[in-house]
C-alpha cells in the first residue's frame, strides 16, 4: 500500500483534539440516535415476545403474531434499524471530527436517515404480512426494500467520501478506513445478495453462507471497530496504542473475514474445499481479532480503574472484550468437531447475542455515551448510565450463559441419539433463563431511552464529561 503506517503518525489526526461547535452535525447525530433507539426498543420488545413464546407456544399464535413472522422482524429490525442506524450516526460524527472539517451535505445525511427508516418500516410490514420469500437469514426483506437500504448506503458513503476529501489533515485517520470500508463492502454484499442469476439450488446456498457472515463481519464489525478507534482514545484523552497494528488488523480482517461464511454450512453438500477454506480463515481471523483487541486494551492500559468512573469507557470496554472473546468463540465453533455438537443448537443463538449484543450493541452505546454529549452539550445522569450498564450486562450474561449450557446439552442429546423431543424438554429451563436475561436487557433499553432523552431534548444530567482527565492532569 502507498500509505505506510509511519506516514500516519498519530499526531495529525489525533482524535483527542476537539473541533468547534457544529449545530447541524449535532442535530443529525441526535436524529440518528433517536431513530436507532426507537428500533432498539421495538426490535427487542419483539425479541422478548419470541423468548416468551418458547415457554408459551400458544400465546398470541395468530397469523400476524406467529413466531415465524416475528423472528425475522426481530433480527432485521435490530440489525438494520437499531445497530446500523446507531453506528451510522456515530460514523458521521467520527468522520467529520477526525477530518477536522464540516459535513459535505446535511441534506444527503437526512435523506439517508429517511431511507434507512423507510426500509425498516416497509421491511417490518412486509414480513408481518408474510412477504417472506425464503427465510434467507438477514435478507428476508423483499428485494425492492433491500434496494432502498442499498440506496441509503450509497448516499451515506458518497457523503462520507466527499467529507473526507475536504479534510484538513494530510492523512486519513484509521477510523475512516474502517467506516468507509464497511460501507463500500456492504454495497457489494447487497448487490451480490440481490442479483438472482446464480441463486438457484446449491448456488443459493453458497450465497446464503456468504451473506450471513459478511453482513455481520463486513458491516457491523468495521463500523464498530472504526468507532472504537475514535471513541476509546477520545474518552481516555490519549492516542491509540499502535497505529500500525490497526492497519494490520484492517487488511487481515479484509482478507480472512469474507471467506469464512461457508462455516455456516459445514457438513452441508457445499463443496468440501469451500468449507475447509472457511475453517482455515476462521482460524486466520485470530490475527485481526487479537491484534485489534490488544490495541484497544493497550490503549486503555493503566487506566482500568477509569472504567468504573467512566460509564462510556465501561460500555466500550465490554464491547472490546466481547469482540475478542465472541470472535474467538466463533473460531472454536467453526472447527468440525465442535460443529458436530453445537451446529443447529441454541449455542449459536447464544453466540449471536454475545457478538451482536455484547460487542456491537455495547460499542454503539459506548459511542453514543462518549460522543453524543460532546455534540449536543447535554449529558445523561450517572445513575441512569449505571442502571443501564448493569442491567444490560447482567441480562446478556444470563442470556448467553444459559444458551451456551443449554445448547451444549441439546447438542449432546442429539449426539447420543435421544428421541428428538428429549432435546426440546431438556431446553425448557434454559429457555426460561434466557427470558429472565431478556427481561433485564429490555428494561435496560427503557433506561437508555431516558438517557437519550436527557442527551437530546431533556434536561442535561449530572454525569461527568465523557472525556476523562489526561494522565498528566490526573497525576
Amino acid at each position, binding site marked *: *500500500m502507498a500509505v505506510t503506517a509511519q506516514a500516519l503518525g498519530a499526531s495529525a489526526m489525533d482524535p483527542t483534539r476537539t473541533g468547534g461547535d457544529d449545530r447541524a452535525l449535532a442535530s443529525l447525530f441526535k436524529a440518528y440516535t433517536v431513530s436507532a433507539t426507537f428500533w432498539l426498543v421495538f426490535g427487542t420488545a419483539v425479541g422478548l415476545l419470541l423468548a416468551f413464546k418458547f415457554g408459551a407456544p400458544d400465546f398470541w*399464535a395468530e397469523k400476524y403474531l406467529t413466531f415465524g413472522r416475528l*423472528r425475522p422482524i426481530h433480527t432485521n429490525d435490530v440489525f438494520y434499524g437499531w445497530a446500523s442506524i446507531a453506528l451510522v450516526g456515530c460514523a458521521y460524527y467520527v468522520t467529520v471530527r477526525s477530518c477536522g472539517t464540516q459535513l459535505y451535505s446535511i441534506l444527503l445525511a437526512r435523506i439517508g436517515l429517511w431511507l434507512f427508516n423507510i426500509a425498516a418500516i416497509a421491511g417490518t410490514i412486509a414480513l408481518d404480512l408474510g412477504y417472506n420469500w425464503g*427465510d434467507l437469514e438477514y435478507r428476508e426483506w423483499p428485494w425492492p426494500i433491500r434496494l432502498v437500504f442499498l440506496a441509503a448506503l450509497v448516499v451515506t458513503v458518497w457523503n462520507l467520501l466527499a467529507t*473526507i*476529501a475536504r479534510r484538513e489533515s494530510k492523512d486519513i485517520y484509521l477510523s475512516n*478506513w474502517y467506516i468507509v470500508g464497511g460501507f463500500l463492502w456492504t454495497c457489494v454484499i447487497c448487490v451480490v445478495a440481490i442479483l438472482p442469476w446464480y441463486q438457484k*439450488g446449491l448456488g443459493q446456498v453458497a450465497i446464503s453462507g456468504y451473506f450471513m457472515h459478511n453482513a455481520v463481519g463486513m458491516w457491523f464489525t468495521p463500523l464498530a471497530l472504526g468507532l472504537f478507534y475514535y471513541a476509546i482514545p477520545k474518552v481516555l484523552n490519549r492516542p491509540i496504542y499502535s497505529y500500525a497494528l490497526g492497519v494490520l488488523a484492517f487488511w487481515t480482517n479484509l482478507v480472512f473475514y469474507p471467506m469464512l461464511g461457508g462455516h455456516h454450512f459445514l457438513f452441508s453438500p457445499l463443496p468440501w474445499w469451500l468449507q475447509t477454506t472457511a475453517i482455515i480463515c476462521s482460524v486466520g481471523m485470530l490475527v485481526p481479532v487479537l491484534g485489534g483487541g490488544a490495541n484497544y486494551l493497550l490503549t486503555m492500559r493503566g487506566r482500568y480503574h477509569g472504567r468504573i468512573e467512566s460509564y462510556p469507557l465501561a460500555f466500550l470496554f465490554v464491547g472490546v472484550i466481547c469482540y475478542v472473546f465472541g470472535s474467538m468463540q466463533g473460531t472454536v465453533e467453526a472447527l468440525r468437531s465442535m460443529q458436530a455438537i453445537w451446529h*443447529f443448537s441454541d449455542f449459536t443463538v447464544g453466540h449471536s447475542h454475545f457478538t451482536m449484543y455484547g460487542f456491537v450493541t455495547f460499542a454503539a452505546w459506548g459511542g453514543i455515551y462518549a460522543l453524543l454529549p460532546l455534540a449536543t452539550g447535554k449529558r445523561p445522569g450517572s445513575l441512569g448510565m449505571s442502571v443501564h450498564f448493569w442491567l444490560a450486562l447482567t441480562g446478556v450474561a444470563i442470556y448467553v450463559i444459559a444458551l451456551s449450557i443449554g445448547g451444549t446439552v441439546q447438542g449432546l442429546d442429539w449426539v447420543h*441419539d435421544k428421541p428428538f423431543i428429549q432435546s426440546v424438554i431438556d431446553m425448557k429451563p434454559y429457555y426460561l433463563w434466557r427470558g429472565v436475561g431478556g427481561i433485564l436487557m429490555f428494561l435496560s433499553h427503557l433506561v437508555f431511552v431516558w438517557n437519550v432523552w436527557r442527551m437530546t431534548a431533556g434536561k442535561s444530567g449530572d454525569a461527568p464529561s465523557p472525556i476523562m482527565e489526561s494522565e498528566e492532569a490526573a497525576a
Partner: protein
Amino acid sequence: MKKAMWAIFGGALLLYVVIVMAIAVGPAIDLAQTPPGPGVKPLTPLQAEGRQVFASNGCDYCHTEQVRPLPEDKVFGRPSAPGDFAYVTPEMLGSERTGPDLTNVGNAKPSDVWQYIHLYDPRAVEPASIMPNFKFLFRVVDKVPAGDTAVPVPPAFAPKHGYVIPTQKAKALVAYLLSLKQAPIPGYRMNGGMGGPTSAAAPAASAPATSASAGGYVFDAAKGKSLFEANCSACHQSTGEGIPTAFPPLVGNPAVEADDPTLQIETILHGAHGKVISGKRYSGTMTAFASQLNDTDIANIANYERSSWGNHAKHVTPAEVAAERAKGN
C-alpha cells in the same frame, strides 16, 4: 493527498470484489448448475404453493432441511447430496433445529391427517412440543362443506362447537410436507432410518439387549415403553387410545390381543392404511418401521402393547418378528 484516499478505499474495495468473486459468486455460478440427483423431481404447483406458506410463516427458523454426514443425523435419513437441491429455490436448508429436520418428513409422518392435527395443535399429538399452533390455517365450520373432510382433532384440543376444516393454504402446506422424501441413491446407505425425530431410538436399543433366543426370551418392558413413546405415541397416544377416526386405539385392538401376532408384526413392519379395524375405518396412515427398528425392538414394542392399558395377550419373540420380516411385504 487524494492519492492516499483512493489507494486505501479503492484498494480495499477492489480486493474485496476479487475475494467475493472467488469465494461466493464464482462457486455459486458453478453450483447453480448442479444437475438433479436420480429421482429428484421438481415440486408440483400445489407443493410449491405449500413451500411458500412454509416460508411465509417462518417454519424454516425452527426446522432444517439438510442431513449431515454425521451419526447423529442418521435418524433423518441419508446424508444430503448436491443433486437433492437442484429444485430447491429458495433454499430451505435452515440454521437451527428447535424442531427436527424435515428432509424426510414425508416418510416419517406420511399421514396427512397426522400433519393436519399436528399443525392445528402440536400438543394434541406431542404434549411436550413447543411448536406454535397454526390454527389460522384452519376454519371452524358448523357443517362440513361438500368435498371437504373435517380434521379429527382429539376432543380435548378441538373447538367446543363445529368442525375443523383445513384452508387451501393448509392443504398446500401439507402437500409440500408430504413431498419431502429423500430419493434413494444406489450405493448411498440409508443409514438405518428415514424416520423423523420420533424414530430416534437410543442406539443401545438397537443392540440385542435381552436374550433373543425363543425359549428363554423375556421382553424388556422399560425399553418397550420408551420405544413406543418415541415411535408410536404421536399417533396412537401414550394411553393407547388413538385419535377417533384418525388413528385406531390399541387398547383392545384385535390385532394386538390376538394369539397370532402376524397382523400386528406385519403392520409395524410395513405400515397400513384403509383397513377395517373393529368395524371402523381410519383416515390416517401407519408408518412402515422395517428399516428403522430391528427385530428385538419390534418385539419389545409389540409386547409392551400386549401387556399395557389392560391388554393381556401372549408375548411375541424376536424370532417371530424375524420370520415375518423374512416373508417380505
